[in-house]
């Protein structure tokens, strides 16, 4: 039975080692290119695997030593930036330590001194013994950099794959913790995702991205086409972990939102309302102009700039002299008036964000048309508004607000085309195209919806 047992263990260990080797290959294949590119920056952790010793069945133990050694070697080889130093490389150490398990009871300063003398970062020592069918294994993990016994565990359980996987986990965890203690971790996420990450101008991949580097100062650049790049510099020490979430803004937003206060957009405003213009025109007969107004503006420092859209649809009546007498006829025209203007407002008085008095001006283009039952005509002209505007806050909730706007001023609606009709006894009379400048005093009322920036 005892002869069969080591053979069985050999099979198990071989299977575990083979599986570890396969995992190692797979790991290397799937490792991002970033690791290769940053290899030059890596600082290798040197760990000594102490000569394995055993008590009890010496003959059988000798057969297990190479197997356990391979297990440790394969486990450590899976951890990047960790180098396993064989005991034969440091013969003087063998003389000093007959029993490496004595490291676990050494003073902290003595362990640090050992690091200074040998350059080793850590030592792993393993010993086991047989007790009939049971198997007792002692695992010592000594961190020489800070002089403390990182891990000292005893496994007393039946020999098998479960035990070996426990040993594997313990060794791997030890190696990673030593490596991390002398390295820094940078984790970069971004909005939008998929941004290119550069460390010291070297590409390391796309977000989300995690890189491990040695202690130092790093310039990080996160960029995406169509967005303003995020730039930052960080001074990182051993064990630091930097979690960077870069929010990239598109160039237009970045231009205003990240601009110095003089150019920063403080709020965005959208207003919709009604405008009245006292036109008082005889030909075409159009006394009162009613129109819909839509304004969209950005507040940049004190100034407010944006676009104004105006729409008006109305009828005009022209009295005609017919064979029945004067003004017996009634010629009706359907008009449409559309304005698109650049708008600018400047506050002359403000009470916080509760009330404002502003002066405004708008200038742009107007398209107007006239249509009778027989024909139609249209025309592009200029248009302009000049007004004073009072704003009173109705509602404010967080960064959103609603204001009431009242304005008085003067409007030039553009040159309105119309048709001049002649009443004829013998059928359809002549319709001649005429134009007339339309302007007059104006007043408007509107509701304004405001979205303030976070700076408020």
């Amino acid at each position, binding site marked *: 039975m005892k002869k069969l047992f080591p053979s069985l263990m050999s099979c198990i260990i071989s299977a575990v080692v083979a599986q570890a080797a396969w995992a190692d290959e797979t790991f290397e294949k799937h490792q991002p290119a970033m690791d290769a590119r940053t290899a030059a920056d890596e600082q290798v952790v040197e760990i000594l695997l102490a000569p394995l010793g055993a008590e009890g069945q010496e003959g059988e133990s000798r057969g297990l030593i190479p197997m356990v050694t391979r297990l440790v070697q394969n486990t450590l080889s899976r951890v990047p930036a960790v180098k396993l130093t064989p005991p034969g490389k440091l013969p003087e150490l063998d003389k000093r330590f007959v029993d490496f398990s004595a490291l676990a009871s050494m003073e902290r300063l003595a362990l640090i001194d050992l690091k200074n003398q040998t350059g080793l970062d850590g030592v792993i020592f393993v010993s086991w013994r047989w007790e009939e069918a049971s198997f007792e294994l002692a695992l010592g993990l000594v961190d020489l950099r800070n002089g403390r016994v990182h891990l000292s565990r005893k496994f007393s359980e039946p020999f098998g794959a479960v035990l070996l996987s426990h040993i594997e986990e313990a060794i791997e965890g030890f190696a990673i913790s030593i490596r991390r203690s002398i390295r820094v971790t940078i984790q970069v996420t971004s909005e939008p995702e998929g941004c290119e990450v550069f460390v010291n101008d070297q590409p390391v991949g796309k977000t989300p991205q995690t890189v491990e580097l040695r202690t130092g100062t790093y310039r990080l650049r996160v960029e995406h086409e169509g967005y303003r790049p995020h730039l930052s510099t960080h001074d990182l020490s051993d064990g630091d972990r930097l979690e960077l979430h870069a929010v990239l803004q598109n160039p237009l937003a970045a231009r205003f939102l990240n601009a110095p206060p003089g150019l920063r957009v403080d709020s965005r405003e959208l207003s919709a309302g009604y405008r009245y213009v006292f036109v008082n025109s005889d030909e075409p007969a159009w006394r009162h102009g009613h129109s819909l107004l839509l304004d969209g503006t950005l507040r940049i420092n004190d100034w407010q700039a944006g676009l104004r859209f105006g729409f008006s649809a109305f009828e005009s009546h022209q009295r*005609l002299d*017919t*064979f*029945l*007498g004067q003004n*017996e*006829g*009634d*010629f*009706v025209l359907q008009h449409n008036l559309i304005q698109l203007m650049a708008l600018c407002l400047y506050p002359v008085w403000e009470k916080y964000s509760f009330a404002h008095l502003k002066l405004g001006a708008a200038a742009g283009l107007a398209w107007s048309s006239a249509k*009778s*039952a*027989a024909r139609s005509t249209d025309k592009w002209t200029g248009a302009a508004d000049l007004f004073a505007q009072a704003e009173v806050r109705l509602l404010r909730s967080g960064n959103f607000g609603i204001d009431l706007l009242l304005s008085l001023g003067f409007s030039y609606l553009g040159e309105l085309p119309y048709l001049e*009709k*002649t*009443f*004829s*006894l*013998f*059928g*359809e*009379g002549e319709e001649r195209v005429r134009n007339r400048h339309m302007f007059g005093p104006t007043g408007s009322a509107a509701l304004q919806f405001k979205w303030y920036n976070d700076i408020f």
Partner: protein
Amino acid sequence: MPRLLIVACASLWILAACGAEGENGNPDPTYQNQLFSGTARINAAKDGSSYQPGFSWIATGYRHVVCAVFKSPIHVKENQITNSDDVVWIWHTGLGTGREGNIRYSDGRPHPASSDAPAPLQDGVYYWGVWALNDAGHAVASSVEYTLNVP
């Protein structure tokens, strides 16, 4: 033989039918276009003497209604009568005479406008029609062009 007889009978019937239309002479008025396209139809008739005829139609109710006699066929272009110089007699609702839908010759005036009573028509062929305009001056109803023979 019977087939030949059938063909002969059919040919005779077609010839007889054509001959009947040819004897009538006047085209069916339903195929004649109104003076102004896209307007409601006014069916009118003349009565009285050929030299001083009266005219009647079903009243339209429009305020601007005109009836005119031309010495030549009425020419219309883009809903406008272009040969208004050929008008020899005219009546319209602005004169304040007669009643729309039923007027006498004496209710009208010679054209160009004159306050004189209209002279009886000379011998010859005349053309007449009735039309109505809305307040905006658009033609809204019209008759076809009628012929008036003055012996």
